[in-house]
């Protein structure tokens, strides 16, 4: 994994959160987790296809999704429904993937993005069938001021 791509992923994630001005996030070093990620209830996935292909995922707890919903709607949204929690995580993944795409390919489209898919389950990891053993894989933990964690995961390979 080139360091530059790790930086682009971190910058894109922070950009989404800081532009929305609702939460300051601090990233930790990328980690390797072979088993389940603890404290995860919801995973949103954006598929990447083109010159670069793979997946980008956002993993978080229901509590984190509820906090994001509340801050993004300015508290006007009321108590979020199950569907709204999923929608929130999906849109976060969508904006992070879109920002990453712009940072990686400002002139030409290196890849296209799918609509978000959401999965609700504990401790999920992403697996990409197009991957070889040494394909780039990043799992970056982010921490909010209140200690709540979420993860952004990127798996990709270049044609």
């Amino acid at each position, binding site marked *: 994994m080139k360091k530059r791509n790790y930086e682009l992923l971190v910058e894109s994630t922070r950009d989404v959160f800081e532009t929305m001005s609702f939460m300051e996030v601090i990233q930790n070093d990328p980690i390797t987790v072979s088993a389940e990620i603890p404290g995860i209830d919801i995973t949103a996935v954006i598929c990447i296809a083109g010159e670069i292909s793979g997946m980008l995922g956002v993993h978080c707890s229901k509590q984190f999704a509820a906090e994001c919903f509340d801050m993004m*709607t300015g508290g006007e*949204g009321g108590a979020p429904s199950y*569907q709204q929690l999923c*929608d929130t995580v*999906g*849109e976060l993944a*969508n*904006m992070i993937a879109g920002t990453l795409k712009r940072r990686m390919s400002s002139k030409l489209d290196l890849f296209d993005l799918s609509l978000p898919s959401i999965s609700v389950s504990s401790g999920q990891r992403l697996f990409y069938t197009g991957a070889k053993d040494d394909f780039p894989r990043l799992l970056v933990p982010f921490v909010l001021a209140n200690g709540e964690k979420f993860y952004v995961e990127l798996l990709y390979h270049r044609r």
Partner: protein
Amino acid sequence: MSLHILIVDDSMLIRQVVKKVVRQAGLDVAGFLEAANGQEALDILMKTPVDLVLSDINMPGMDGIEMLMRLRQIERLQELPVIMVTTEGSEERINEAMDLGASGYVLKPFTPERLVEQLGPLGLLCKREDGVEPPPDFSDPTAF
């Protein structure tokens, strides 16, 4: 002029956020209409007067580009301001939207300031009696 604004996005959350940002941007809003894809938007536009459309590009069913292409083929909608609000930020995609008659574009995530930049030239910001546009209220720390 109070505006009837159509927000087109498959995400209910983003439609809510856009409404909040539009209010923060200082527009005089008469009412919001919402659609989850391009076809729903066209259905609304065919039977309801709208002053401004804020539309996503990537949506299930009819996307924002096709919606834009189709509405520009309808004579009474050819001058309707349509701003694309999207994560699709490549030059290629933006040029495609602008060539089809988009009035502007805002990349997600976006600030109220960025929306104002796009609305200013369209003359849609509400004006005081002296003709000066009021400063938008960006004091809300949760502004998206």
